[in-house]
């Protein structure tokens, strides 16, 4: 039996056995080895891909150093986002305030790099020493003539989700700037797609083939000017709903743009995402194009998946990811590979999300919120998973247990979105699960031995 902290008992359930609603959206229990990050982290990951802006981290050096090249958000042009800028606060600044330093840093930075906008991230310390970041930013903005936007992401002020919200507020300030540049009739914005491993490019290509124009992608391969025109698109398509629904709501209110929530992972969700957009525009040509596109992509994909499925049929998986929407898609995508999800959880799910997870998983599945390595590894072992899907801190845990791993977080090197992404996903899962290296795993050797003995007994 896996031991669970008393304070966490309501955050873990077994489908079919436990009937309560999962407790979530609360800070991690003090003392837990939590896999979660902070408000600042949430803001940073969302705004990170805006490539022609500078991202200045106001605080001590660590916060900047750890988020330097944090996620593989690719840019087709400028790459300013990939550098690390920090005010590197020292003791004196902490005592006397960091406003002067912030002002000087901004001026130096903007002078040297000529960006189209600047984001200033407030870290914990800033919230505490009470720098008037708004005032400094306003002053610099006036002097240099580009948007200089404070991001209120003090780490302790909530969870990663609050960081998403702060990021949405910051991006929102960039919208509504450009009413002149032409924007085609069938235009959408993609919200919450970050171009990890070039995924935005895959998705944009689908829309193009449908006859739909992507006015801006917020924030994958993002540009300040594009976001400035986003308010003139007809529809907002929200992919990472955890992070960007808030922005969609603000844009709906101010600009009257409706939004839909989609997921680009897995066959059903991807197809639905395209159809939903097509249906929104109610244009026969677009609808035809969409049908054609989905048909040809799925037809191309399915035979290849069948190949992988042969080896993966009946294998089991654990899923622990940041956002719960991704978890839904994973459960479905794994089913296409013949795999069952036996443990599934997220860092930021809501009660409804967990209810939905309950709906789509099998009896006996462990569903958990904000887990820790001890629990996670315990359940993986108990349920006999062959694969773990997670992020950077989960990878070595899976390997130590002698099971396969697939990164579905910031560090993925393979595009996993779209139909191409589904194929990459299948290949990665297949490679990892069937790798010959596991035959050296003592746990596997033991499991194989037990299975052999059991079989002999039967005979």
């Amino acid at each position, binding site marked *: 039996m896996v031991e669970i902290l008393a304070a966490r008992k309501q955050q873990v359930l077994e489908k079919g056995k436990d009937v309560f609603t999962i407790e979530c959206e609360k800070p991690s229990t003090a003392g*837990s080895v939590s896999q979660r990050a902070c408000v600042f982290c949430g803001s940073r990951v969302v705004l990170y891909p805006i490539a022609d802006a500078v991202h200045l981290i106001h605080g001590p*050096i660590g916060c900047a150093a750890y988020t330097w*090249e944090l996620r593989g958000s690719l840019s087709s042009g400028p790459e300013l986002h990939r550098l690390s800028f920090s005010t590197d*606060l020292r003791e004196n600044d902490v005592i006397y305030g960091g406003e*002067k330093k912030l002002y000087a840093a901004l001026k130096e930075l903007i002078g040297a790099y000529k960006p189209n906008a600047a984001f200033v991230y407030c870290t914990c310390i800033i919230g505490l020493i009470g720098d008037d970041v708004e005032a400094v930013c306003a002053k610099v903005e006036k002097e240099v003539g580009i948007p200089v936007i404070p991001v209120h992401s003090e780490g302790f002020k909530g969870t990663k989700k609050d960081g998403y919200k702060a990021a949405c507020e910051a991006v929102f300030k960039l919208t509504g700037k450009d009413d002149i540049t032409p924007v085609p009739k069938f235009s959408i914005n993609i919200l919450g797609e970050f171009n990890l491993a070039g995924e935005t490019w895959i998705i944009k290509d689908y829309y193009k083939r449908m006859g739909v124009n992507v006015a801006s992608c917020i924030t994958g391969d993002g540009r300040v000017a594009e976001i400035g025109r986003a308010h003139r698109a007809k529809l907002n398509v929200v992919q990472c709903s955890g992070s960007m629904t808030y922005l969609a709501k603000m844009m709906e209110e101010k600009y009257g743009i409706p939004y839909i929530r989609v997921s680009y992972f897995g066959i059903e969700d991807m197809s639905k995402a395209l159809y939903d957009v097509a249906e929104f525009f109610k244009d026969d040509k677009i609808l035809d194009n969409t049908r054609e596109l989905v048909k040809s992509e799925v037809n191309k994909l399915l035979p290849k998946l069948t190949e992988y499925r042969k080896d993966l049929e009946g294998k089991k998986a654990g899923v622990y990811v940041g956002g719960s929407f991704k978890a839904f898609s994973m459960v479905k995508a794994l089913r296409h590979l013949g795999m069952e999800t036996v443990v599934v959880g997220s860092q930021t799910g809501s009660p409804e999300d967990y209810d939905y997870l309950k709906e789509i998983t099998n009896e006996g599945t462990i569903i958990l919120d904000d887990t820790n390595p001890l629990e996670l590894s315990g359940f993986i072992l108990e349920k006999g998973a062959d694969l773990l899907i997670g992020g*950077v801190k989960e990878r070595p*845990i899976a390997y130590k247990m002698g099971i396969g791993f697939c990164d579905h977080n910031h560090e993925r090197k393979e595009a996993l979105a779209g139909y191409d992404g589904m194929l990459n996903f299948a290949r990665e899962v297949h490679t990892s699960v069937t790798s010959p290296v596991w035959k050296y795993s003592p746990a596997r050797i033991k499991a194989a031995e037990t299975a052999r003995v059991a079989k002999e007994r039967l005979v």
Partner: protein
Amino acid sequence: MLLRHTPKEIVERSALTINPAKTCQPVGAMYAALGIHRCLPHSHGSQGCCAYHRSALTRHYAEPIMGSTSSFTEGASVFGGQSNMLESINNIFTLYDPDIIAVNTTCLSEVIGDDLKQIINRAIVDNKIPPGKTVMFASTPSFKGSHVTGYANMLTAMVQNFAEKTGAKNNYVTLLPSFIEPSDMSEIKHIAAEMGVQYIMYPDTSGVVNAPMDGKFHMYPKGGTPKELIRASGDSRSAIALGRVGTFQAAQLLDTKCKVKTDILDLPIGITATDAFVDTLRKTAGVTVPESINTERGQLVDVLCDKAQYVYGKKVSLMGDPDTLYGLVQFCKDAGMRILHVVTGTPAGAKWDRRMKELTGEGTIVKSGAQADLFYLHQLLQNDRPDLLFGNTYCKYISRDMDIPLIRTAFPIYDRIGHSYVPITGYRGGLNLLIKVLDILMERQDRDAPEEKFELVM
């Protein structure tokens, strides 16, 4: 090109750090704490820091890195983190059952002014700490110092909390290594063992962050120095601290607290510095240098003779942590290389700057502290181009931009494996390093040779 923005002209920056050549204290403290057996590092502050520090170490070592957090919320930031810490202690011992909790503070808890000594005392009074277990802490504000300072502070806390002088001297020599890889920790142990010296070494991260795969997830891998040994170091016959910046404080404390005579040396990287270590070990433990160690030394010297012409006179620039840099510069000098630049983001102090300058001689640019970042290094390199660069993973952008080969020797290394398994300290480590350098330089020579000069034997 990612770095096309870096201008050649160097202007003094007053407030901005670009592409830092350091990171913050807790990550070093966390690493040091992992070098104690059954110790769980604990980060006192908000979740974010802890998550980042664990990710950083996880990427660097490709190992599960454990560490708990006080999980500050807004309330804790206003009213102080005492209740979070007390609750943490309770939860950690209940659930994770470590022998030791090693707390590091973060910027946040430092600025709030949480008094950890008092909080831990309170936990003791309230019987929150089970018998035989310890909660220790190091103060690691990141608006001072760097990850190396954090390491040094945690190492000092180990002496403070455990080293005990009972009056009954034992025969051990205590070894205190600076921030180095587990492979280097192993190499130092290897030299001591080979020389027949009874030693205590802490921290010792070998077997913790380069543990074997055995099919299980271990919260506490087999390695790490047991706290009984750290305690016994207070009675040890003498001590040798390796790497001044990372160990100075701890070494001094061991001396004043327990009256253990301590020699502070450089990290044994390269022939000169390893000789100094071996010799000090010989004297202080009263042993003779065995043939096996002489052989290791002889092999390094032999290869250096064989291939000296390929390294002699080559220009190098180095970035990294102060202690490792000191060793590496000596190594490069042993090989007859010309040192162009030495840069560390760690504010290593005027004394370090001075010693480094003395070592490198005139004509080398030495810079440490806040504005010594990779942007600055890139500018230096544009003005005076080396043949070889030593540094961490982030230097790969410069390396690619300028087509200068990079040898990864600093923290962090996210994109190559081996550093935690293959040492650069000791004679054997020197040989590894030399082979790496030769490989990369000769590879270049082959690559760049005109057709008529491209030959089989080099």
